Each structure stands twice: as C-alpha cells, then as structure tokens.
C-alpha cells in the first residue's frame, strides 16, 4: 500500500481502525512511564516541587505550535495538491490544538502565581500564545460558518497559512523582547541547558503528548469522515423526498 492509497477515505478508515488500539496502548504506556519519571524527578533547589508543572506545561506549549504547523501542512495539501483528506485533517486538528494551547496557558498561569507572583503578565511570549489561542478559536468559527465543508476547507486553509506567521514570533519572542517568561532552555543554539534529571522526563512526556495528539487526531479524522458521509446521506434522502 502506497501513501496515495491513504487518500481514499474508506482505505483510511480501515487502516486507522487497525492502528487505533496500538496507538492508544502506546500513548497510555508512555504516559505511565512519563508520569512515573516525573514523580521520581528531584525537586528544584529554587522552585521545590512546583517545577514539576513544567512536565505538563512545556509539552502542551510545544504541541500547541506543532498542531498549527500540522494544520499548515494540511492547508498546503488542500490548496496546492487538492489532497482529499487534507481538509479533514485540518478541521479535526483545530479543536485539539486549541485545547493544548488553552492547557498551556492555564498551567503556565498556575505556575506563574507561585513563581512570578502573578497569574498573568502582558509580556511577548504570553501575549503571542494568547493571540494563537484566539486564532485557533477564529479558525474553528470559520469552519462552522460555511455550510459546505469543502468550501470552508479552502477558506480555512488560507487563514491557517496566514496565521502561521505567529509560530516564529512565539518561538523567538523571548529572544526579541525583554520578557518575564524565561528564554529557551531546550531548543536553542548550543544544546539544552536543562539538567538530565529534568530533561529526560520532559522529553518522555513530550513524546507521550505527541502520541496523544496523533491518537486524538486520527480518531477525530475518522469522526469527521463519518460525519460527512451522514451529511451526504441526509442530503440524498432530502433530495429523494422532494423528488
């Protein structure tokens, strides 16, 4: 089976039906390992046990940007290659990405209260992630505003690509501006500055959250394909009744 076979929705449904149990099992296993490692990680000398919010906050933040990148690739698939499942992928990913962004903002806010003394600060990193969250919500609104899913797909694809400008702004916001949010500790020139004891659990949790996204995304894509089939059947039925 080649990649182009996946463009057929029926083959896609069959393949993902076989994959899903394995994906769910792998996600659960990695979360179990990750959470055990997080519990076993030492306390920070300054932050104490509060540092462990990092193991939830950072993967959510990484994924909020990763999901928009996935949606941008799907948008290119819709506009450039007219791939049949690209718009299904984009529509399914939007609420998941919005949830990850929301969780990143909330866990960051809860972490900020004991560490910075404030739940919120209008610095560059927090503001640009908040804008990303607003753009996710706007994108979800646009999907639901147009009745026909394939027309909505092309409008949403343009908006996704325009919004992709926000990703480098978020990434480099801590370098370009004087921010309260700390600068990059993992993805930076010169390698990570995190100690091994924190870096390993963080990366394990990141992989676990990514697998969670893949599982949820494929499940959502399956639902979207089935939803479109129901819609086609309903329209067919309404047409037959009128005739």
């Amino acid at each position, binding site marked *: 089976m080649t990649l182009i076979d996946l463009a057929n929705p029926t083959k896609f449904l069959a393949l993902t039906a076989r994959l899903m149990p394995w994906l769910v099992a792998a996600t659960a296993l990695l979360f179990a390992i990750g959470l055990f490692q997080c519990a076993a990680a030492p306390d920070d000398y300054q932050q104490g046990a509060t540092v462990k919010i990092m193991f939830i906050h950072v993967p959510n933040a990484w994924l909020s940007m990763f999901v928009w990148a996935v949606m941008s690739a799907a948008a290119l698939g819709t*506009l450039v290659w007219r791939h049949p499942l690209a718009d299904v992928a984009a529509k399914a990913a939007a609420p998941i990405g919005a949830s990850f962004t929301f969780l990143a903002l909330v866990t960051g806010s809860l972490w900020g209260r004991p560490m910075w003394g404030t739940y919120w600060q209008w610095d560059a990193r927090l*503001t640009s992630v908040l*804008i990303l969250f*607003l*753009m996710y*919500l*706007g994108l979800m*609104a*646009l999907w639901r*505003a*147009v009745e026909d899913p394939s*027309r909505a797909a*092309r*409008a949403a*694809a*343009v*908006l996704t*690509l*325009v*919004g992709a400008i926000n990703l480098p702004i978020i990434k480099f916001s801590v370098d370009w501006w004087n921010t309260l949010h700390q600068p990059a500790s993992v993805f930076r020139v010169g390698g990570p500055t995190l100690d091994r004891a924190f870096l390993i659990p963080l990366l394990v949790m990141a992989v676990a959250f990514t697998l969670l996204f893949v599982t949820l995304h494929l499940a959502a894509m399956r639902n979207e394909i089935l939803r479109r089939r129901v819609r086609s059947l309903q329209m067919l039925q309404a047409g037959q009744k009128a005739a």
Partner: protein
Amino acid sequence: MSALGALMTRDIRIATRVGGGALIGVLFFLTVVVLMPFAVGPDLKLLARLGPALLWLGALLASLLTLDRLFMADHDDGSLDLIAMARTPLELACAAKALAHWLSAGLPLIVATPVLGLLLNLDMAATSAVALTLLAGTPALTFTGMIGAALAVALRRGGLLLAVLVLPLSIPVLIFGVAASEAAITGPGSFGAPFAILCALSLTSFVVGPFAAAASLRHGLD
C-alpha cells in the same frame, strides 16, 4: 485609463457617494473617542496619558467597521465575479480596491485625528505623532483586514466573524503604533524602532494581503 485606475476611481466614487460614504467611519471614530471620557472619567491628565491608545483603538475599530463594505456590495450585485474573471490579475484588483478603501476610509480618520486630540487634551506635538503613526499603520489595518473581508464575503451573517478573524492579525500594528506614539510623546524609548517596524508591517501587508485575499475570493466564489 488603465483597468486598475478605473477600478480605484470607481471604488472611491462609490465610497464617497453611497451609504453615508466613508465619512460614516469618521463618525464612528468620533463617537468612540467621545465615549471614552465617559467611561474613564473627565480627568484631563489621565486622558492625555491615555490619548494615543484611545485614538489608536478608535481608529482600529472604525477601520474594522468599514471593512465589510470592501467586497460585500460587489459580491451582492455580481461585480466581484466580473472582476475575478477579468484579464487583470485578481491580486492586483484586490490591492487596488484596498488602496481605494484606505484613501476613502483611512485617510479621513487621520485628518480627523487633530480634532479628536483636542477632546483628549493632547497637545500639538502629541497629536502629530499619533497622526504620523496612524498614517503608517492604517494601510496595514486595511490590507490585513482585506484578508478577513475576503474570507467572510460569502457569509450572510459574516460581520462578527470578520472581526474575530481580523483582530488577532491587527494586534501587532496596534502594539507598535501605540509604542511609537508613546515614545514620541513621553519617551525615554526610541520612536524610530517601533515606527520602522510599523512601516515594515504595512509594507508586508501590501504583499501578503492581496495574495491571501485573492486566494480566498477564488475559493469562495466558485
């Protein structure tokens, strides 16, 4: 006269003659700026302190409000289909329409700024600074707003969705516009850096806006 020139002249004529003209945007700007002292309190020093921000917010909301007239009327009477099918590239046609819109709706806002600056107790230097930043920033608002207007053109109740889509893209313009104004008025900070970024945002939107809007129109019209 070239096709683009004719399109621009047509748009400016329609904007100035039909439906209250683009001056309805100036009227909304005036109303919003007049509302602010009722909410904030009549303390003149506070108003002078907030002045640039209030003027920028008013201009942003006023330009947002006039955005749906960019494509909606043409879509309703079918001219948009003709423009899309013409020999002139749709990207250039969108750029011409956005430029005409800025000339008819954006420039009057800038002309109205000194009067409104008086209401907010801003002195001549402050008002000139705000007007200059508005001059550099309102084209960015128009050209990025055009993307949202093109996305929402086919929707019947698209007004609020248009605002939700356009506002996150307008936030950088607002941030740098107010930063430049504040730097010019009170500033220890430099005026040049945020003003240059504001100009860069406008120039970028001149390129990105028409391409994105044309892509949205093509996909929304078929």
